[in-house]
């Protein structure tokens, strides 16, 4: 199929960006969206034009490196997948596809479609861990039975891949779903309870410092999240935060 691509080009984080149009042909429905961009880039190199920079790595929907706002939605029109799992059969011959970076002040553009999501790392560094030494003197794993239901919920929260689609989708560029996923994972496990108060206060504090917007419960994040992280986690974060604040 033939496609018209409207792609955001921006030299670096301080440069002014703009959309460029590219035409591409011979795209096959079984190709993934990123393979389509690979084809475009090889074509550009052959024409001696600098190719489009975009982030990607595992190409199987788990590393969270790929991003892209495709026709106004993070990771494109399909649900529960990342851009690398989006296939071209989803598009029609002659379509125009607009491709932009995830936009938020907290995610400055690195170049073209690649953005800097280190704000997420800093939120995790503020408390997204259990303070246990890793050098090996721990109690036996089965000495701490955990209710399956809670373990499963913790797992579901823990499947967040940190891609930033929640921020990209949110009209307020809020990072609440991301933050709530980690807070929830530990809040649901007995190992995480000990530091729960400090964790939630520090992580929310860092989240605010990074310049993300506020959550207004539109639910866009949950719909666009490639891993289906539930809004329940945000409610849990709110609850954890409230009780932590009251404890002081």
């Amino acid at each position, binding site marked *: 199929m033939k496609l018209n691509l409207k792609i955001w080009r921006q030299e670096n984080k301080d440069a002014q960006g703009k959309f460029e149009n590219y035409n591409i042909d011979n795209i096959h429905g079984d190709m993934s969206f990123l393979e389509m961009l690979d084809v475009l880039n090889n074509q550009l190199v052959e024409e001696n034009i600098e190719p489009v920079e975009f982030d990607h790595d595992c190409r199987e929907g788990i590393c969270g*490196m790929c991003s892209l706002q495709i026709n106004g939605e993070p990771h494109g029109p399909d649900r529960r997948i990342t851009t690398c799992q989006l296939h071209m059969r989803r598009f029609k011959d002659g379509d125009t596809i607009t491709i932009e970076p995830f936009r938020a002040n907290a995610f400055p553009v690195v170049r073209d479609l690649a953005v800097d999501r280190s704000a997420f790392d800093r939120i995790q560094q503020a408390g997204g861990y*259990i303070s246990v030494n890793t050098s090996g003197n721990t109690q036996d794993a089965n000495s701490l*039975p955990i209710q*399956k239901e809670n373990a*499963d919920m913790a797992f579901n929260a823990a499947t967040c891949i940190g891609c930033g689609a929640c921020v990209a989708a949110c009209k307020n560029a809020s990072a609440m779903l991301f933050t709530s996923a980690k807070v929830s994972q530990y809040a649901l496990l007995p190992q995480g309870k000990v530091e729960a108060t400090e964790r939630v206060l520090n992580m929310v504090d860092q989240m605010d410092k990074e310049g993300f917007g506020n959550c207004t419960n539109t639910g866009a994040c949950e719909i666009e999240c490639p891993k289906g992280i539930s809004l329940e986690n945000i409610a849990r974060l709110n609850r954890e935060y409230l009780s932590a604040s009251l404890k002081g």
Partner: protein
Amino acid sequence: MSVLDSKIPSGPLAEKWTKHKNDINLVNPANKRNIDVIVIGTGLAGASASATLAELGYNVKTFCFQDSPRRAHSIAAQGGINAAKNYQGDGDSNYRLFYDTVKGGDYRSREANVYRLAEVSGNIIDQCVAQGVPFAREYGGLLDNRSFGGVLVSRTFYAKGQTGQQLLLGAYSAMNRQINRGKIQSHTRHEMMDLVLVDGKARGIIARNLVTGEIERHAAHAVVLASGGYGNVFLLSTNAMGSNVTAAWRAHRKGAFFANPCFTQIHPTCIPVSGDLQAKLTLMSESLRNDGRIWVPKKKEDAKAIQEGRLKPTEIKEEDRDYYLERRYPAFGNLVPRDVASRAAKERCDAGYGVNKTGQAVYLDFASAIERYGKEKAFSSGNKDASHEEIIKLGKEVVEAKYGNLFDMYEKITDQNPYETPMMIFPAVHYTMGGLWVDYNLMTTIPGCYATGEANFSDHGANRLGASALMQGLADGYFVLPYTIGDYLSNDIQTGPISTESKEFEEAEKSVRNQIDKLMNAKGDKPADYFHRKLGLIMWNKCGMSRNEKELKEAIEEIAELREDFYKNVRVTGKPNVKNQELEKAMRVADFLELGELFAKDALHRNESCGGHFREEYQTEEGEALRDDENFRYVAAWEYKGEPKEAVLHKEELVYENIELKTRSYK
């Protein structure tokens, strides 16, 4: 006399590690503060090592090319992690895990290393649970296990199909804790370009900041390479797009021997190649072989009809299906080790029984599992005479609960519903057992340069068992390296900070700049991908699942030619001092083009078949691998001498004192 000293401690196998830990030198906590360690790569091996080193008190600098440490490719491991916990009470033990691993590796791994791996495996699980890793649990609240290929016990711990992700996020969280304490400096979007040696010791690296293009010098008292495997030399593999050999290869060029480069694991259950422009292959977890049955049609005309789209797999009658693994290997059936399963699939496809358009696929069928689970479920929920439809519906629910995410992933990629029609799978490059040669302390042949995880060669021999890569990465990082490195660093307590102003750093930086200039100034018109694709085809066709002397010789020639062509005809667009993915790719491909040749050379010299290395000249009458313990019971460690073809072979003889060498049989 070999120059290789594996430093295996003396004494009985089960006591070696404890004894060694008691014997080696330690660095006192106050001195650790004055010692810097660089860790390249933040996958399981790198992240766990960084966290533990920092916790012990060292100053750690980590480097990864991704935008966050959490994205390293360990994250994509699906199935699970082995540990000899014997929670299931099915007779597991450290010895059995050790035995299975050595046997699974076709007797080409080091006994002492493997035993240590088995010994610390249980501790990994304890550690990860304490960290909040949400492993799958049973209703009683205790940890659940499943079974993997090549073993007869259930010792695999898992978190649905995302075990690697959960373990890596655990290690990443441990890293974050140390970053927050100021003990780890994390450098993301950085690529190691060279290892710097001062007085013969690894004392730092040259790295390129991938965002600004800056060439940076970083000094340390020791450098740990946890940079993963080199499966991407095949272009098409289950590795991440960015996975590369550059860090390991640059260390090799500086004197680290490269061991067994030809030992590559071809994983049997991947989604088949769909087109010429495909960029990567997707793995379907080995755990699927617990319940899926692998088959091809018994009759060639059926296979042909399927290839041409005239027949559907569901229309083939039970008696016309060839469940070839169950037929050939009744004891292990569909759960034979990966190398065996892959070769068997290739054998059937080469014989004309393959089932997709190109004849390069076999079926992985869940119909009987769905029915079996459906019956169990109906029975246990009190519906004693459920109809066939009800049984199938219940069975699908059970299968969905177990493998739902994998089934969804398959459907997304292929547009076929695996609940209704069997999956199509084909082997693909997945893991490289070979890597930098290391001694028992995980130190390479360069003093102060260590290699952990997939980047080293040590534990898996010629074939790795499923769910053992995660185990090795974390064992090395959490429990082995942080202690053994102290033995070396104890000599450095008075060294003081290493300067980056020395001539060694100067020279290393200059050579990196020269290479960049050379690539930027190449006057060609082809993208780096073009050469990578060509290299991949040579590797797959001539150094892939089965190899022979003639083709390996051709491969060596062709790769050398391609390398020459590359430097003449590559085009790197843009500038070196900004983010430039073409330059990143070109530099990685340049190293793959050297490694590929050494790979073929190693495969050519090893005149035997073992594990993932199958030489057509060396097979039994039944087509099984024919090992030659007399002549090849050694680790082939190659020393760099300028060009890959000049590489010099060093042998580390493998000694088996606790295990009897046998022909590996899974029948």
